[in-house]
């Protein structure tokens, strides 16, 4: 609760600040130039979070969110290493974008109407479809959230999680008891120790909770998704060119997967006869120039970082400890929601 109050306070004050600085934020345009001049991309990512952005043993950030920024760095500089990652607390992430402390938030925020309309922010295409779900112990034999009458549910404070849960169950007229646990590690332990019947969070979180259980098969994720949590990259409003770059690098990673171009085989596609692939990889046409980038922008991103599938499989996919399946984050041609407009 306290976090929510703080957050809304901070957002309110920030909105005031932006109103006061209307003229100044107009001069905050030309992010691309600032990035090139700095020779570094400043990329906002969550506080360390497994699979999305956490340090490895050498202190290098690994994860889905990190790789999105690396792809962007490749597209801009032809080098995935020119990124400085900034861990941001959820309470300050939007202000960090507004004040120019970071150039973008990489897939860190759920796209919502009010954020887009009132915070002076813009969003890239959806990069990861998440949703709030519920997980229970298999021993309970519960098959659906409808059967959770009177159940206790472990939740984390400070996000919209409790709100979503309350809304959902109220609409279905089901009584439940929320057990609020302050810290992620305790929250997991509380559930494993049987202090609550169910645990709720974004499905990607639940997958990682399940992954660390002694026996993951003891736990089942219920089929209901009780809220939509589409996440995307966030940029400052008012710099159309920068937004286009972030948007089309995002689309490019998806389109590459659809065209079958991946990190391993991208060079073989340089001789492709397909005119769209030629344009994407900068063999013909001037797509990169139109964005203010090198024509090899997307080729570099795919070659150095990989397409959407490469990134997903490397960081959060079935073969990683998180073990997420593609689900909605599958190409539209395979029954998912990822869809990129044509490159022409």
């Amino acid at each position, binding site marked *: 609760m306290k976090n929510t109050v703080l957050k809304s306070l901070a957002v309110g004050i920030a909105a005031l600040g932006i109103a006061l600085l209307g003229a100044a934020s107009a001069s905050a345009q030309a992010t691309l130039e600032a990035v090139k001049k700095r020779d570094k991309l400043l990329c906002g990512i969550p506080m360390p979070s497994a699979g999305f952005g956490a*340090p490895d043993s050498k202190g290098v950030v690994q994860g889905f969110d990190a790789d999105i920024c690396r792809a962007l760095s490749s597209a801009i500089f032809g080098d995935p290493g020119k990124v400085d990652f900034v861990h941001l607390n959820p309470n300050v992430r939007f202000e960090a974008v507004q004040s*120019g402390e970071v150039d973008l938030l990489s897939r860190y925020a759920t796209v919502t109407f009010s954020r887009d309309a009132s915070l002076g922010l813009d969003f890239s295409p959806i990069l990861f479809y998440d949703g709030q779900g519920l997980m229970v112990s298999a021993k309970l034999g519960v098959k659906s959230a409808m059967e959770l009458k009177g159940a206790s549910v472990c939740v984390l404070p400070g996000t919209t999680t409790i709100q979503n849960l309350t809304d959902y169950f109220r609409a279905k007229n089901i009584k439940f008891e929320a057990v609020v646990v302050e810290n992620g590690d305790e929250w997991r332990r509380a559930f494993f120790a049987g202090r609550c019947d169910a645990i709720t969070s974004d499905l990607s979180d639940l997958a990682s909770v399940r992954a660390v259980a002694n026996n993951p098969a003891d736990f089942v994720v219920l089929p209901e998704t009780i809220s939509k949590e589409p996440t995307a990259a966030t940029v400052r409003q008012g710099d159309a060119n920068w937004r286009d770059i972030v948007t089309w690098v995002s689309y490019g990673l998806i389109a590459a997967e659809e065209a079958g171009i991946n990190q391993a085989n991208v060079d073989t596609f340089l001789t492709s006869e397909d005119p769209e692939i030629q344009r994407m990889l900068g063999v013909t046409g001037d797509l990169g120039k139109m964005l203010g980038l090198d024509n090899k922008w997307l080729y570099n991103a795919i070659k150095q970082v990989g397409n959407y599938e490469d990134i997903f499989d490397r960081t959060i996919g079935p073969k*990683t400890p998180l073990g997420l399946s593609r689900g909605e984050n599958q190409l539209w041609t395979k029954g998912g929601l990822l869809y990129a407009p044509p490159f022409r």
Partner: protein
Amino acid sequence: MAELDVFDKPVALSEAWRVPKDGAVRRYFGTPANAAITLLCMIALFLIGKVAFAWLFVDAVWSGGPEACKIGEGACWPFFGDKLRFMLFGYFPYDEHWRPLSALLLFVGMCGLSMVPRMWSARLLLLWVAALVVCYLVMTGGFAGMTAVPTTKWGGLPLSFMLSFVGLTCAFPLGILLALGRTSNLPAIRVISIVFIEFMRGVPLISVLFMASVMLPLFMPGGMSVATLLRAQVAVILFAAAYVAETVRGGLQSLPSGQFEAAQAMGLHYWLMMRLVILPQAIKAMIPALVSTCINFFQDTTLVTIIGLLDFLTTVRGAMRDPNWQGIAVLEGYLFAAAVYCLFSAIMSAYSRFLERRFRAGHD
């Protein structure tokens, strides 16, 4: 039996036992109630010690990776082998960890040196300035083959130390000035001091950090930016100064007014009176309170995680978020963090007791 006489040791041992008999033994076993309490505590300590020992060493996992730890029952030492460096130094470039390490050692060494009363002199102050400059240069780099490392990549223990101890060191003189200002006869200075102190004490540290990290950049002219770390450092200094000021004021008020009057009667002007008569006595009286402030701020620096700085506790948590280790070494990580904070806090409070004894001895 005869052989026993050959050895002095049993005799010496029983002698050794006899000495504290009227001291420790009587204190712990003097009455049946005391003896029972002592025994109970010893049993409890033994049981805790046994569990801790088994967990730490006997059942511990010494080699292998996350999988071995997942199966094993005891402490997971490979976690530290893999993650210790990140926990200590955060995102500082891996190959140059000797830099934060040497800065940290220099800093701790200087702290140790300053704890010895014989070393207290103006020269020590100069040495401190030099040491801090060296620490800063070693951390920043950009010369002599050291790559330049921006403050955004600083983290872990050096960052926690810097925020808390540099913060307190700077806050201390500022706090004394504020306390003097608050008790001053000059209305303007008094009002400014009161407003500052009451404002800082009236808001939580988190809000001050928020203001420094979120609001400040929005009001700065375009293109100008001050590193988050510096902003946090200034926020900590200002915040700590208000608390130090109130502690010092308490110390000033504890002195009988005769001290002020006597000093004035001797013809000392304000600053000399304060420096020679009042502050030395006041500070002596405030040592426990000041050390509490120090310990508080050392632990409060963990709040900077809210503005995205990676203090020691956050780097420990970050290490636990590696997908390979997630959920496996939770207890180990938190215990390690607790042990480090506990160690430094214990050193501080032990030192405060030493200072109290020393000054009381000087006083009598």
